């Protein structure tokens, strides 16, 4: 061992040798393994003999298998021959077999009827017309299963027999032939057959079936269920019927719920574009209430039609997407479209704001004007930025005034810092008609004597007690007295008088005297 504690080379060598000794320790085989190994020659042939034996064994096996299969095949053939001879059935007549099918509707019998197809029709028609009600009923049911158009006269004829009427109605429904609607419709009036007739007409579909169902809407106990049944038809006739039902308050909700299904969307759009003007207006009204975004292209096209422009514009406003906003903006000059912006929401506003960034000055002016109709506080920053354009500033100020609210008021006060915009800003603050604008107007009127009169006039347009108090605060000179007098007289007395009475009853004698004077003027 070295002094530093590390093993020396001699140590390592000695340990390595010791390791080898340990690894080379004698090893004993597990018990029985040697015996098993010594038996290997007894259980295994050397390879030269082994492959010959293997080939021979394979050949023997193959021969055995072939012989066995040959024997089995012969045995199967003889067995099949015996079975064929023993079980060859006596073939019954088709009518007998069909009657058997009708009386014992097993799976095998039904399968037979399906394979027979049209060959069974003649027999089934005969049985359906026959005297035996039980057989006839079963035959009618099978005619419904087969659903061949050729069975229509037989089934309509079966309606004359009360005992066969219900299966005949159901079978006619299964036929799905539109001409079955007429014969089936009268049975909607029969309480016992109403359900069968309704289901049959729903399966038949078409104008006649839908008309028959709509005709009994007022008579049924659950009209909503019948509207849902009509809706389940899903064809154009049903769509038109549902659109027209929107005009009938009793069925309006059910019809609208049905039309909300996507399957009716194409029919609804077709109706909106169709020649039937009344139906078109109902369809557009439905689109306005459902507001499906995919209707935008169709509604955009309808903006060109003066008779449908207003409803289409309202529908676009209800859809409230940037695409709908773009469609309205493109047609905004047309009559009826501008009003629609008043109904627009954030989607259209977003579209307008996007156009504000892209368009030229003329376009911007137009957009600013439209934002006055539909804008919200979200538009304020964009409008504030736009006010730097002197040509657009008046429109921007007016729009901010129309938008109103604390953010718009703050923006207007900020813009009023520019001398050229002071008066328009005061005017816009008046347009807000909001109490939020009162402090700003007081500050503007106090800051500049020239603006005191316009500020008082603006405050007079805000119907609030705070505005009255602000007016009295700003009124301080002979010059403004006339303006104040006019403003207070023009304001609603119910707003002005309580403020003046409160001042009259206050502790300040000067204020009370002033209030008395104004009260005499306003409310002599």
């Amino acid at each position: 061992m070295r002094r530093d504690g590390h093993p020396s080379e001699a140590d390592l060598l000695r340990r390595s040798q010791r390791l080898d000794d340990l690894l080379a320790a004698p090893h004993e085989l597990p018990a029985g393994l040697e015996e098993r190994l010594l038996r290997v020659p007894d259980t295994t042939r050397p390879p030269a003999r082994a492959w010959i034996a293997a080939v021979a064994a394979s050949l023997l096996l193959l021969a055995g298998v072939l012989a066995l299969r040959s024997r089995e095949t012969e045995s199967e053939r003889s067995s099949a021959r015996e079975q064929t001879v023993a079980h060859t059935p006596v073939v019954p007549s088709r009518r007998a077999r069909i009657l058997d099918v009708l009386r014992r509707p097993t799976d095998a019998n039904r399968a037979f009827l399906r394979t027979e197809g049209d060959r069974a029709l003649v027999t089934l028609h005969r049985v359906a017309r026959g005297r035996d009600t039980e057989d006839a009923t079963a035959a009618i049911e099978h005619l419904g299963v087969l659903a061949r158009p050729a069975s229509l006269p037989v089934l309509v004829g079966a309606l004359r027999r009360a005992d066969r009427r219900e299966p005949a109605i159901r079978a006619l429904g299964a036929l799905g032939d539109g001409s079955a609607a007429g014969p089936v419709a009268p049975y909607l009036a029969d309480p016992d057959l109403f359900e069968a007739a309704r289901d049959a007409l729903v399966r038949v579909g078409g104008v006649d079936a839908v008309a028959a169902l709509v005709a009994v809407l007022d008579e049924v106990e659950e009209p909503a269920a019948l509207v849902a049944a009509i809706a389940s038809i899903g064809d154009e006739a049903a769509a038109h019927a549902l659109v027209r039902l929107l005009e009938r308050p009793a069925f309006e909700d059910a019809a609208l719920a049905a039309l909300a299904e996507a399957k009716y969307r194409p029919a609804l759009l077709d109706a909106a574009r169709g020649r039937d003007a009344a139906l078109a207006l109902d369809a557009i009204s439905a689109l306005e209430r459902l507001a499906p975004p995919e209707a935008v292209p169709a509604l955009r096209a309808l903006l060109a039609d003066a008779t449908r422009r207003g409803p289409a514009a309202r529908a676009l406003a209800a859809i409230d997407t940037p695409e709908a906003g773009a469609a309205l903006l493109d047609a905004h000059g047309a009559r009826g479209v501008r009003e629609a912006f008043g109904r627009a929401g954030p989607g259209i506003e977003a579209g307008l704001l996007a156009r504000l960034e892209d368009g030229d000055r003329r376009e911007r002016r137009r957009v600013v004007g439209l934002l006055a109709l539909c804008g919200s506080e979200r538009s304020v920053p964009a409008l504030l930025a736009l006010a730097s354009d002197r040509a657009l500033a008046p429109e921007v100020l007016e729009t901010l005034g129309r938008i109103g609210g604390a953010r718009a008021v703050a923006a207007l006060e900020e813009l009023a810092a520019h001398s050229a915009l002071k008066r328009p800003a005061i005017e816009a603050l008046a347009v807000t008609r909001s109490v939020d604008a009162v402090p700003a107007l007081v500050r503007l009127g106090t800051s500049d004597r020239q603006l005191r009169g316009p500020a008082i006039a603006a405050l007079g347009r805000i119907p609030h007690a705070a505005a009255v108090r602000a007016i009295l605060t700003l009124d301080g000179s002979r010059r403004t007295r006339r303006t104040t007098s006019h403003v207070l007289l023009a304001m609603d007395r119910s707003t002005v008088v309580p403020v003046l009475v409160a001042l009259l009853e206050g502790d300040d004698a000067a204020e009370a005297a002033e209030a008395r004077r104004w009260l005499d003027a306003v409310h002599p």
Partner: protein
Amino acid sequence: MTNPAEFTYEMALRVRSSSRLEDAADVSDRERRVAFARLVREYAATLHGVALRLVERPTDAEDAVQETFLRAWRALDQFRREAEPRTWLFRILLNACHDRRRRRLLRRRERPAERAEPTDPAGRTSRRELVDRVFDAVDVLPRRQRECLLLRVRAGLGYEEIALLLDIGVGSVKTHLVQGRRSLVRRFGKELDA
């Protein structure tokens, strides 16, 4: 007729080196069996001792040894004269062991339970315990180091033989041996001084 008691490998090799079945048939079945029995008695324990460390289960080691001798018996006639019977058997054994390892590739290796440290109050370890622990340590060596160490130390093969068996260079064999030994010596340290 050769006396079975005096039958040697050289005699058996005379048969195996023949390329014709007729010549091979000249050697009696009894002579073959005697030669095979001597191979088993001489090498079975060494082969099993190595196989135990190359496969995962003791039963696999027994199977590998049994398969080695089975293949040896079947291939007795193809055995080449120039090869050592020991090398030949170890080649078959390594293949058999690798086959078994591959089959169990997806299974978790069953390590022997970690042996307890010596319980002798004096800290002395009996030779039997130490041997067991050394072999446990061999089990976790990298495969090549383990193979080289076992074939060199336990089976007593030369460097060239090991290189031939493992299909690597003699230098690599020596490197693996040094690394394996160093790893074990470092692990057991003074325990090997006793």
